């Protein structure tokens, strides 16, 4: 990693963990914590979708895994007495396992066929949550306790959220921390051999197989990592809203995860993060437009995709040369 990148990472971390909380406490806009926490979590789920794009698959099914992750966490905390912090990785692992089972057959599909199947997946998730007894149907699971204390060998890493006077800040910090970890992992994947092989899959699966890449294994691996991200994002969301319903993550959310990737740029690891931020704030800013909100919003998206097919981050590339 060169110094320029290190400085960039440093500035980003200071902005996220220092400047943002400081600005919010100065301006008193505490509601921004919720917004930014959402952005952080949504961008984790979007990062997963981005990874499936990276192996050449259009994934419109991330909502299903976010929902599954949310339910796993909710059920384990309310019915089995698990600590939320234990359910967070478990939700991710559950989704990764689930996605291996689902991915094995459907990852053989390509292009629009894969996209169609994943689109249906979100709807299947919603209907399953409605029908299963363990998810409590349409009533969902409510009054989920706030995350408790996380300590290792008597050392308190994270205090009990219920005792905090400002749980919003705590949620923001945890979500931002998770986001940083996930994107660091994603960056590492993309810039290691694993990423090169993913790109080889994206560009030509047949050739990949002929140079000895186990394409089926690699596709499932990438998809399960992607779903892991979806699962932990969903679980974290549930902890914040303290409730989950079959409609907590819907087809619209799945589509948004994909749009975040498109908007930020499919060629850039940090594309989905930027895309999520822009889409989320863009939508909120257009609130003043009243009933024209959706019309303006979607027109803007179409224009962006027409003129910046490689995402917003491609704007910077022309100036600075290839990254």
């Amino acid at each position: 990693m060169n110094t320029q990148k290190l400085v960039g990472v440093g500035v980003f971390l200071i902005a996220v963990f220092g400047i943002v909380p400081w600005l919010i406490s100065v301006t008193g806009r505490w509601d921004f914590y919720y917004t930014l926490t959402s952005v952080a979590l949504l961008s984790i789920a979007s990062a997963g979708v981005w990874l499936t794009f990276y192996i050449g698959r259009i994934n419109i099914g991330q909502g299903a895994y976010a929902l599954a992750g949310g339910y796993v966490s909710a059920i384990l905390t309310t019915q089995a007495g698990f600590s939320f912090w234990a359910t967070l990785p478990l939700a991710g692992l559950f989704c990764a396992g689930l996605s291996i089972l689902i991915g094995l057959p459907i990852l053989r599909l390509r292009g629009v066929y894969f996209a169609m199947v994943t689109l249906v997946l979100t709807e299947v998730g919603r209907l399953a949550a409605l029908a299963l007894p363990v998810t409590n149907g349409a009533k969902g699971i409510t009054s989920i306790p706030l995350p408790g204390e996380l300590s290792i060998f008597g050392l308190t890493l994270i205090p009990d959220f219920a005792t905090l006077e400002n749980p919003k800040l705590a949620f923001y910090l945890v979500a931002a921390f998770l986001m940083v970890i996930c994107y660091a992992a994603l960056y590492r994947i993309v810039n290691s051999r694993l990423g090169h092989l993913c790109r080889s899959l994206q560009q030509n699966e047949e050739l990949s197989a002929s140079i000895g890449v186990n394409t089926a294994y690699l596709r499932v691996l990438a998809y399960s990592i992607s779903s892991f991200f979806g699962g932990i994002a969903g679980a974290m969301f549930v902890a914040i809203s303290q409730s989950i319903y079959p409609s907590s993550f819907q087809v619209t959310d799945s589509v948004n995860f994909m749009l975040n990737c498109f908007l930020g740029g499919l060629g850039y690891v940090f594309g989905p993060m930027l895309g999520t931020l822009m889409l989320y704030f863009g939508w909120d800013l257009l609130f003043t437009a009243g009933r024209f909100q959706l019309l303006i919003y979607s027109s803007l998206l179409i224009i962006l995709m027409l003129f910046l097919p490689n995402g917003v981050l491609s704007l910077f590339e022309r100036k600075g040369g290839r990254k």
Partner: protein
Amino acid sequence: MTPILQVKGVTKRFGGLTANNDISFDVAEREILSVIGPNGAGKSTLFKLIASFLRTTSGEVLLKGRRISNLAPHKVARLGVVRTFQETTIFRSMTVRENIIVAHHLRSKASLLGFFLGTKQARSDEAEFGASADEIIDFLGMGAIRDEFASNLPQGHLRALGMAIGLATNPTVLLLDEPFAGMNHDETMRMVANVRRLRDERGVTVLLVEHDMPAVMKISDRIVVINFGEKIAEGTPAEIQANEKVIEAYLGSEDAAIGM
């Protein structure tokens, strides 16, 4: 002459169409063998069967006596039989060097997790791949286009890149699908020399499908001729040129095409 690759009674049917019918021949170690035949004769199907991209209807392909037909393609590649493609199949949005480095996959000793964590083995693998890629680039005289994106390359270079990708896997048997197609005379001659050096300097056995008859006659130790999915002749270039069945298959203006 010990056969390294044996094709034994290979048959492939697509529904009612028989693309390959009971084809048998042996390939000796360090041999350059060409498969020729008119359009639609079933040459490419045969290649796909050998590299196990298609399943045989009956018959089998043996590598050093071990059956490789109907294994997964990546396993066949692992055993040393690697196919390059008829279409200019490359990784388009990677540079020449990146293409070749990725193709070193089979040589990696570190696991994918190792690469993710950047272990010592992974780093030494990466360094080795880079060095080996540079060596292949020099070997094929592609130094000038090392960092060019593959999507910007002209036909001739693409074919060379295809071969470089095949070479990076360290194959025992390399299957070249129309390596000279779309090349001018000079490029073809350079490529012919490269294929020879592959065999002479790296000990690779080469099997190729090609339409460019002068090149085939020049390069091949032996030739197998296929027509309507059946093998009609096998022999040295001189024998093939004199074979009546072959002349008949290439009737008319094709007399000139097989170099007579």
